[in-house]
């Protein structure tokens, strides 16, 4: 890598700064290539063309500053920039500078409080992607996964490397579930206070000790059922994950994300041994959530068909536009590695955030549905959440707490974290959607499987 030399000049010697902006990139492996030139980045608001020209001239003695568009129109390449010249990308507020003297002059004033300069960086050379973008960390994890597959199928033992990877995996601690740790919900300063979260499901065990002093708003949407009392357990588990208490009265580890959010329990499943939720009842629950100002609705339910259905797609679009983010389970219809499944409705609605499930080693769960190839953009997995061996509340009659697996479990992690972000940034609807996607942790998994990656809580 070419080494920069800062040649001496009166200006550079007179003010020897601890330059706050690195000119030498942090590159211990020596893999970054630079051109030897420097990019000066001007602050927003200080990037007016005339001011930039002024700075370059006054500070660095650069009087031959070409505007990039003129330069490039003449057919010159930026490789032709001479030492006493600079190329000003006027619309971007950046300047390409060749001469070392000019750069050190600019560096010397860059740290002044009224300096118009935001940063000074070497001009890097980017290369085509073969091999690029694969971090050492990703490759280690990939190698461990391949080693494990080999061990399973070739009958051998996992290698030491693979075992070390397994040992480093997350696990439930005395204080927190692995899922709260993986999503950093356990260290978030936010609680979901002031945010209303509706969980439309089998209801809640209203006698559960962990919710005994939590105000909840409840409504049943199932004909003939007047209470949201949860017989099955699915709803209690999901509500626990989304909004469970910070210090469970039962004494177990914390398992809930948005412990300060206002819980809206909508019962949309009947009490059959295999409970069913009619679309009309679910939509009525969404209508209720919207009318009550719920910014998040958690739907851990799906219809096992690989089609978009308007009975979900249309109302969910209206919900999102009205500021209610609907988070839905991608589906458990995969049996990987052979059958990768497909995102089900309602998750496959464009306006629903479809959630896949990962395990504590951040691998995609065997049952977690992949993005559908037939239902367009809506059929995409958008994000992933913890969905294997998820510890949460269940009805007292079913043991009070239990470990469940499912995209049903990943979904309330995202719903709870959406509530944290809503509190942290005050966002709703599509802005909240974007926030979740932008802040997700890339996992090195296929985006068809994990979307943008693992949901992350604001800190």
């Amino acid at each position, binding site marked *: 890598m070419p080494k920069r030399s800062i040649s001496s000049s009166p200006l550079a010697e007179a003010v020897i700064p601890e330059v706050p902006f690195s000119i030498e990139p942090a590159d211990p492996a020596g893999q970054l290539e630079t051109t030897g030139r420097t990019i000066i980045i001007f602050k927003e608001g200080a990037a007016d063309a005339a001011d930039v020209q002024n700075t370059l001239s006054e500070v660095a003695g650069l009087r031959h500053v070409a505007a990039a568009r003129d330069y490039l129109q003449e057919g010159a390449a930026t490789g032709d920039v001479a030492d006493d010249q600079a190329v000003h990308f006027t619309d971007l507020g950046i300047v390409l500078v060749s001469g070392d003297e000019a750069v050190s002059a600019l560096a010397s004033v860059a740290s002044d409080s009224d300096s118009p300069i935001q940063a000074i960086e070497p001009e890097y050379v980017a290369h085509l992607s073969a091999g690029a973008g694969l971090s050492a960390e990703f490759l280690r994890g990939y190698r461990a996964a391949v080693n494990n597959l080999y061990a399973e199928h070739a009958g051998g033992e996992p290698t030491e490397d693979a075992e070390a990877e397994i040992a480093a995996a997350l696990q439930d601690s005395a204080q927190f579930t692995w899922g709260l740790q993986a999503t950093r919900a356990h260290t978030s300063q936010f609680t979901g206070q002031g945010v209303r979260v509706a969980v439309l499901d089998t209801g809640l065990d209203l006698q559960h000790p962990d919710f005994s002093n939590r105000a909840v708003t409840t409504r049943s949407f199932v004909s003939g059922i007047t209470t949201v009392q949860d017989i099955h357990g699915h709803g209690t588990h999901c509500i626990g994950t989304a909004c469970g208490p910070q210090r469970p009265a039962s004494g177990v580890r914390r398992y809930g994300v948005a412990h300060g959010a206002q819980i809206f329990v909508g019962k949309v499943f009947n009490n059959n041994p295999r409970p069913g939720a009619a679309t009309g009842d679910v939509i009525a629950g969404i209508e209720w959530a919207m009318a009550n100002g719920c910014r998040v609705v958690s739907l851990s339910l799906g219809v096992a068909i690989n089609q978009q259905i308007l*009975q979900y797609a*249309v109302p969910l679009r209206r919900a999102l536009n009205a500021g209610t983010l609907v988070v839905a389970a991608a589906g458990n219809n995969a049996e990987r590695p052979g059958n990768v499944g497909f995102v089900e409705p309602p998750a496959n609605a464009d306006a629903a955030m479809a959630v896949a499930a990962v395990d504590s080693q951040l691998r995609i769960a065997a049952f977690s549905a992949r993005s559908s190839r037939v239902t367009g953009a809506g059929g995409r997995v958008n994000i992933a959440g913890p969905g294997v061996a998820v510890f949460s509340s269940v009805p007292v009659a079913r043991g009070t707490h239990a470990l469940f697996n499912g995209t049903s479990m990943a979904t309330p992690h995202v719903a709870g974290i959406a509530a944290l972000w809503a509190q942290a940034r005050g966002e709703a609807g599509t802005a909240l959607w974007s926030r979740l996607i932008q802040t997700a942790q890339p996992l090195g998994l296929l985006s068809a499987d994990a979307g943008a990656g693992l949901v992350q809580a604001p800190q």
Partner: protein
Amino acid sequence: MSTNEKSVIVTVTDEAIPRIQRVADDLSSRGLKVDRVMPMTGVISGSLSAELSDLHGIDGVMSVEEELSADLPPADNDLQ
């Protein structure tokens, strides 16, 4: 519900949402037994003995579909 009665979900068009009750009345006169009228999501639910196609052509109707159901496994499944 009688044997040939089906549950249906009707979505109304964006522009018809302000007059969703009128749309519901029109559907009713074509045989839909209206159950819910939901103005925020723009959905009308109900039951119908006639054919779904009998409800087409009504002003303000975007779609008519048979209502589907999401199902959960029994409580003792650990895949939920």
